[in-house]
């Protein structure tokens, strides 16, 4: 489904990604792990077209993603969450999720200005956004602005907003950061549940090892922008290079 082929990204002198390749199959949850600065977020930004790749190709169901613009990604069925939150702080939680459904709508400037035939789509979008908030246990906060809510709550809002685009491929950047142990378990359940409910493939970046190993079908480990291991969780966990990278003894 997703084929990352030999992708490199350079920022001036820094090589954030260095010939990275991996694949994800339909319906898989793929964990992407690696120490801080390994290039995980950079990979996300390449897929969602915020960054350009210096070399390489990214194929998504046969489409060359690098020839698509950032705003065209959602239409292809790709949605993401952000590591450091990229919400719309002045909007309510409900509105945030409704913006998430932007790519599903068709009302343009003319129809919006005249407000002709927009009522039905708006009502449906609102209803669906409400359902998604409920699905992530945020419905009681629906009419609160996003600004000022706890980090863990906003992390869940990011997931609800991403799902509003009705994606078939969801990228989550450290969804468990800032959560307590109990909440992490709950989040694992939520991710599996939405994967089944929305028939998603998932690319998951996470430092919480127990969680990644627990829910991933496969794991890609990277360090300094390069892949150091790829495979089922049990193999990757026991890989010498991965252990070394995490213990910090790697050269």
């Amino acid at each position, binding site marked *: 489904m997703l084929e990352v082929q030999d992708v490199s990204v350079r920022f001036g002198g820094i090589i954030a990604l260095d010939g990275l390749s991996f694949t994800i199959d339909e319906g898989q949850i793929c964990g992407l792990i690696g120490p801080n600065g390994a290039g995980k977020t950079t990979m996300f930004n390449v897929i*969602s077209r915020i960054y350009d790749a210096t070399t390489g190709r990214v194929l998504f169901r046969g489409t060359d993603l690098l020839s698509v613009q950032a705003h065209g990604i959602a239409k292809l069925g790709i949605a993401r969450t952000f590591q450091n939150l990229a919400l719309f702080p002045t909007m309510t939680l409900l509105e945030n999720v409704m913006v998430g459904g932007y790519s599903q709508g068709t009302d343009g400037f003319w129809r919006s200005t005249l407000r002709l035939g927009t009522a039905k789509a708006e009502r449906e979008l609102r209803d669906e956004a409400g359902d998604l908030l409920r699905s992530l246990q945020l419905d009681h906060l629906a009419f609160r602005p996003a600004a000022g809510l706890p980090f863990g709550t906003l992390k869940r809002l990011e997931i609800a907003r991403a799902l509003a685009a009705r994606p078939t491929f969801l990228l989550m950047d450290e969804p468990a950061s800032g959560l307590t142990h109990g909440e992490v378990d709950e989040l694992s359940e939520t991710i599996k549940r939405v994967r089944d409910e929305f028939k998603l493939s998932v690319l998951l970046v996470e430092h919480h090892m127990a969680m990644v190993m627990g829910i991933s079908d496969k794991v890609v480990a990277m360090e300094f922008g390069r892949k150091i291991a790829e495979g089922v969780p049990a193999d990757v966990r026991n890989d010498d290079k991965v252990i070394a990278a995490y213990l910090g003894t790697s050269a």
Partner: protein
Amino acid sequence: MTTTMQSTSAGAPKAWPRPIPDSSPLHWVFRVIGVAVIAAIAIYIGLNATPSTLGNVTEACILAIAAVALNLLLGFNGQISIGHSTFVGLAAFAAGYTVNFWHWNAYWSLVLGIVLCFLLGFALGLPALRLKGPYLALVTLAVAFVWPTVAKKFLEQKVKKNSLKGTHLSPPTWTGLVSKGKDARLDKAIFLYWCGIILLLVAYVVVRNLRKSRIGRSLVAVRDNETAAAVMGVNLKFTKTITFGISAAIAGTAGWLSAARLDVFNDTSFTILNSIKYLLALFLGGAATLLGPIVGAFAYFFLDDYLRSHAPHWTWLPGQLSKGPIASFLLGAIVIAFVFIAPFGLVGFVKDQARRVFIVTPRPLRPALTPSALDDERPEESKGE
């Protein structure tokens, strides 16, 4: 079940503030009363006011339309413009020139003004894509600075005079405002007054509709977080340039109205000072609120008018203060002080006060299709809010 933060569900029901469900009969009563009161005031003024009062209200409408235009761009989309006086001037010049020299129908000159302003606004939106905040402010500032020079060249070469005549828009016969002689002045004032009210109403409805739609949400999303908006599928280039164009086009209608009202105008009629006036009016009333720019413009205009006619007589002011441009000075001080006290402007201030008495509660979400067991296990962190 659901823990709501609305004061309504917390134990014993509190009497105040009273919740009013959105779109409930009571909410509609309030809405209808609000609209009826405003309409009654507008009609009363239209029927009874003197030509000079009518002229003042029309002038306030012009300011309000420009502020509404700026609110769409700056308040909702987060793009600052100090160049909106240029759009007002462009449409005024287009109207004055085509009506006086090409003998165009004044209403076609309105269409022309709107189209020209949209195109110029769209073009200005292009560099705006790469610029943010103070840099965008500088570019639009430059446009406002250049306009008088361009206008002067135009007057010299095309008009061959140092000013352009107004369009002398006269009321069509079906309005019945066709008196001759000394009542003609009143009739014309009444007609322009209604033109102002209608154009302001149209501008308001356009911005309101946009705001309450899919596009409006995307405008605010772009303002709040561009990257996230793009990932949600919002085409930043398209959205920002079209918004700039629409805002400029709305400002153009204000310019057309100016050309209909003024006897003559020239290169000094639409300067950067006008742009600053639009900004002050917007922030006085409350940016990013629908009524803010209108309330702000009227408050600004009539405060300005009052200070101009009274402040010079305030001999109790120390020193030579009452001799200088005291009105502008006081006005600036008052607006700044007010925005300091009420950062969300007059509308934000009134809303805050009203919320102590009534709270409009949003329409509830669609109930769960199948009651989920998860509903009872809310995470701890959200319970206390």
